[in-house]
């Protein structure tokens, strides 16, 4: 079995007032803490109108990922921007579906 990378590489890209963060690897309580710092750091300095979290390369997520997204939703509200989560793999979407995030219209 190939070893999956556990430390999330956070690549970001910013244009037209949209900050996109490409998350990869596994999101749990351990990695969420570091992801939060990197994402908030970028969002605080750029103050984008839209923060887009791209989950296309996320291999694993538990409920810590829901907390991470909810926290970024609040963070973006504070700076007057919006949040969107895109490319969510099917098995991970099942966890989001249990949260209130579906009703907030941030999941794509």
């Amino acid at each position, binding site marked *: 079995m190939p070893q999956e990378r556990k430390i999330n590489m956070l690549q970001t890209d910013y244009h037209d007032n949209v900050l996109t963060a490409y998350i990869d690897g596994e999101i749990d309580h351990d990695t969420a803490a570091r992801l939060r710092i990197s994402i908030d750091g970028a969002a605080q300095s750029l103050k984008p109108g839209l923060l887009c979290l791209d989950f296309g390369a996320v291999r694993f997520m538990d409920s810590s990922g829901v907390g991470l997204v*909810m926290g970024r939703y609040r963070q973006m509200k504070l700076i007057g921007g919006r949040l969107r989560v895109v490319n969510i793999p099917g098995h991970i979407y099942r966890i989001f579906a249990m949260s209130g995030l579906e009703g907030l219209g941030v999941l794509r």
Partner: protein
Amino acid sequence: MNIRNEMKLSFPSKSCNESFARAAVAAFVMNLDPTVEEISDLKTAVSEAVTNCIVHGYRRGSGTIFITAKVLEDNRVVVKIRDKGCGIEDIKQAMQPLFTTAPDEERAGLGFAVMQSFCDAVKVSSKPQKGTTVTLEKYIAV
């Protein structure tokens, strides 16, 4: 019910062990030839229970987390995750979806809901100041 295989693990309540614990349980059941979905469900449920030991059970310090896993004759996997932490006062309330005692730590209150939806059975026993044991059961289709 006869036990076909079993294993025990113990490790300190460090957050870097969350990924170790779920990968170890996944590796243990691998010879039952589980589907990708069965493995993913089991890993997610184990991750929830282990994280709860770290962020809630041992919130005031650190301690040891104990895992035992058994494979029974009917292809049922039984995983017990135990801590000797603060315990849970009201288990019924704790298991309610969206209930959390740590909202300021960006917790969603979904851990038990995820365990219940990804396993066939979830049992919780707990004693305040003594600790908590979560038992997860999952059938691996033959």
